């Protein structure tokens, strides 16, 4: 029986493929009902299913497929014209077939469900046009017979006999009759049917199925081969024999190509997920009484198999949402001057080592107020937070768990489970989700995911005697400080090291300190790796920058999952293991993003919202004992501590000699009429440029550098202020330093 089991297994796999084709083909056909090519391929697909199920003895399946085939043959012969009813009928047939196949797969039998209704429905459809079914059937049978005769040397008279038998009222397929009569083994008929189905299909037979586990194993082995190759190459350097060198060179090339080839085996076009969507869209649109056209761009974009698997469900969900909530009813659309047919666009493209997927609809967009209202009602945000939210932040509320703005719960969406899961799933594979919406014009959901989880280009750097791989995706540039630069280039804001990168202060993180490794190597040079953690930049100081390499990412064991600084590990050319840095994790551990985390708590949705919202960096200082003031960090050129004794007077100005110039000092407290700067031996001075001169602001204390969007909430009550904002959850005055520099010194103002 095992031979039979194998045949059935193969039949299942093949039929499922055929059904996928059918789904896509039928929806396509609806748009282009006169395409003979499409009709032909659909017909062949269903014909193969029917023929095979007859041979294997699945009567229900055969009956259902037969009904569909009859209908299709009429379409193919031009006796019927495709309409929505017929398409729906055929799609229902596909579903029925799928169900039966599922049952066969699970239990080995067709199951108890009665599918005769489907057959009846198909028949009723067929009744719309009287047709001569026998003729078509005979044509096919003769074809099958021909193939069998040619391939297996089945005697022509046996086939003729079978045909005659069939004509004289035997309703079975010709293959069955032949099998029964013992002329051919069932497998041969299967083969013949396959040949029959393949005739005319352009690309088939050029692919085989391979177990993914096997591919993974191959990949591991290739990795090992690469290591061995590297060792051989090192060995080559010490040898002089030309023959040996030549061989080593060839080994090198072949290994590289083999590696690339094996990598490619894991890549699949995103179209393999998308091809399901036309059907989904069609069904949903019908269900909601909407008209939706789906457009796809870039379906050939390739992605790693594991990622393809991971995005399948989230994408389906997003599409459902777009149709249910996004696209309006035809009447509404026409009323607002849009075409009745809504458009759903799927777009995929490569960009910067990542794959971008966009799902855009031209529907009503997301209305923010109801969304905020829901979020407040469900207790996820406070009314104050809602009021303070930027548009972008508010839009991202859709990713909160348990939030649905659907007016009523449908069986498709509105249960409040969804977008948060979409987000979690995408983030699980290292991706990002963002949403943009224009009320009345539509919503676009943008997903960014890594091309592959398996191989990434990385920069190899050394710190504290250990090697680390830094993913290139996050790498912006490398800065090398030498000589005097190395000594003086790094400045400090109250203990936090910064470097001036083209006029902007770049916070620095010492990798060896962060990871509690050994001391920084004293070499007279400083290597800064400028990294991007979302929209934030920081400099990672390492001992040495070695090389860039394509590395194979391997996951860390669960014992190490808790360490957010590492994204995985890889094996280097010498066979040693090196850890891969998780740039975002590093940024968080190093408190580059700490304020945001405090504010947003564990809610990563808010975290991302904030980052995405284009935030400013603020230097927060303390003035007049208790007032918190903030200055845009971008305008600050330097922070200095000067001795109180070095302050001199020039007219009404307080001045200090600074870098060979006379720098005017402004006592912020005095200027704002808040008293005077607290007396101290060393004064804290914020230096900035005003009209080509350095100006120093005297403050009590530098508190912090904060990155967040500050919304001015209170109008200025004092000159020299822009207003107030909440920074780090405390009311902070925003200094208008340009206006302040223009102010006359206090004495004159009075």
């Amino acid at each position, binding site marked *: 029986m095992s031979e039979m089991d194998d045949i059935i297994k193969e039949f299942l796999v093949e039929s499922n493929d055929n059904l996928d084709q059918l789904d896509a083909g039928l929806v396509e056909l609806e748009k282009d009902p006169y395409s003979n090519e499409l009709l032909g391929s659909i017909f062949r697909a269903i014909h193969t299913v029917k023929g095979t199920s007859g041979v294997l003895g699945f009567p229900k399946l055969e009956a259902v497929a037969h009904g569909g085939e009859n209908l299709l043959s009429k379409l193919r012969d031009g006796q019927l014209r495709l309409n929505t009813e017929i398409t729906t009928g055929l799609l229902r047939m596909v579903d029925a077939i799928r169900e039966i196949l599922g049952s066969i797969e699970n239990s080995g039998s067709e199951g108890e469900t009665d599918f005769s209704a489907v057959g009846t429905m198909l028949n009723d459809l067929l009744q719309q046009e009287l047709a001569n079914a026998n003729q078509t059937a005979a044509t096919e049978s003769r074809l099958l017979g021909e193939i069998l005769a040619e391939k297996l040397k089945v005697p022509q008279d046996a086939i003729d006999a079978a045909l005659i038998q069939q004509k004289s009222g035997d309703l079975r397929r010709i293959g069955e009759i032949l099998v029964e009569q013992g002329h051919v083994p069932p497998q041969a008929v299967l083969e013949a049917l396959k040949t029959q189905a393949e005739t005319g299909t352009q690309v088939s037979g050029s692919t085989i199925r391979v177990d993914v586990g096997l591919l993974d194993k191959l990949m*591991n*082995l290739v*990795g*090992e081969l690469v*290591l061995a190759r590297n060792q051989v190459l090192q060995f080559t350097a010490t040898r002089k024999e030309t023959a040996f060198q030549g061989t080593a060179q060839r080994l090198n090339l072949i290994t590289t190509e083999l590696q690339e080839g094996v990598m490619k085996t894991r890549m699949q076009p995103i179209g393999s997920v998308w091809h399901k969507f036309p059907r989904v869209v069609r069904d949903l649109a019908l269900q909601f009484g909407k008209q939706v056209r789906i457009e796809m761009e870039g379906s050939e974009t390739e992605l790693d198999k594991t990622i393809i698997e991971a995005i399948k469900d989230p994408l389906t969900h997003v599409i459902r949402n777009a149709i249910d909530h996004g696209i309006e009813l035809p009447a509404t659309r026409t009323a607002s001057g849009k075409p009745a047919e809504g458009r759903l666009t799927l777009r995929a493209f490569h960009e910067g080592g990542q794959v971008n997927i966009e799902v855009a609809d031209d529907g009503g967009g997301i209305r923010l107020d109801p969304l905020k209202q829901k979020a407040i009602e469900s207790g996820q945000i406070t009314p104050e937070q809602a009021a303070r939210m930027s548009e972008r932040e508010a839009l991202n509320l859709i990713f909160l768990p348990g939030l649905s703005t659907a007016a009523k719960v449908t069986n498709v969406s509105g249960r409040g489970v969804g977008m948060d899961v979409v987000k979690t799933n995408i983030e699980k594979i290292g991706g990002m989700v963002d949403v943009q919406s224009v009320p009345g014009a539509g919503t676009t959901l943008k997903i960014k995911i890594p091309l592959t989880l398996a191989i990434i280009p990385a920069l190899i750097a050394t710190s*504290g005697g*250990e090697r680390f791989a830094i993913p290139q995706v996050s790498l912006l540039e490398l800065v090398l400080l030498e000589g005097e630069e190395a000594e003086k280039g790094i400045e400090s804001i109250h203990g936090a090291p910064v470097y001036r990168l083209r006029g902007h202060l770049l916070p620095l993180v010492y990798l060896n300190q962060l*990871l*509690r*490794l050994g001391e920084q190597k004293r070499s007279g040079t400083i290597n800064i790796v400028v990294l991007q953690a979302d929209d934030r930049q920081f400099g990672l100081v390492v001992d040495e920058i070695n090389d860039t390499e394509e590395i194979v990412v*391997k*996951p*860390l*064991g*669960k*014992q*190490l999952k808790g*360490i957010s*600084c*590492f994204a995985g*590990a*890889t*094996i280097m050319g010498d*066979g*040693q*293991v*090196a*850890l891969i840095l998780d740039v975002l994790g590093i940024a968080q551990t190093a408190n580059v993003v700490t304020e945001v985390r405090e504010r947003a708590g564990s809610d990563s949705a808010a975290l991302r919202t904030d980052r995405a919202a284009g935030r400013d960096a603020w230097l927060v200082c303390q003035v007049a004992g208790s007032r918190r003031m903030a200055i845009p960090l971008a305008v600050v050129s330097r922070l200095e501590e000067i001795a109180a004794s070095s302050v001199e007077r020039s007219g009404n100005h307080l001045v200090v000699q600074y870098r060979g110039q006379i720098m005017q000092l402004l006592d912020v407290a005095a200027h704002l009429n808040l008293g005077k700067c607290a007396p101290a031996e060393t004064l804290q001075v914020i230096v900035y440029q005003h009209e080509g001169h350095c100006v120093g602001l005297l403050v009590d204390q530098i508190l912090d550098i904060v990155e967040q969007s500050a919304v001015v909430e209170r109008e200025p009550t004092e000159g020299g202020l822009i207003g107030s904002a909440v920074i780090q959850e405390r009311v902070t005055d925003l200094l208008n330093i340009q206006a302040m520099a223009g102010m006359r010194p206090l004495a004159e103002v009075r």
Partner: protein
Amino acid sequence: MAQSQQFCTFFLDDLFLGVEVEKVQEVIRHQETTRVPLAPAVIGGLINLRGQIVTAINLRRRLELPPRKGSEAPMNVVVRTDDGAVSLLVDEIGDVVEVEPADFERPPDTLQGEARELIGGAFKLKGRLLLLLDAERALRAA
């Protein structure tokens, strides 16, 4: 069902420990390890096992034993788990020993500390005790 069991044995300090032989994937000599910063102390590092990255557990630390004297490198007992292979760093490898379930006894209550969690019991062999190491627990980094 008194069926004899096989144990892969190894030494740690003066402890004679064993893990069910089915759970052991392989035993290999010392491998270069890459240390993992910020990891719990029991993590001995990462090793390259033919292209597979395997976490090594410092079993001495796990059992709260003092660090090994001398410079001899530890051996790896690679154990299969549901989440892939994990290596136990041990002092020395012993033989595969066959034991009878009848010889098994639970550890006395006087056994305290981490060891209480990790040592499931002892097989009374001739002249010495073979301690049964609960590999799953040992691999759960404290």
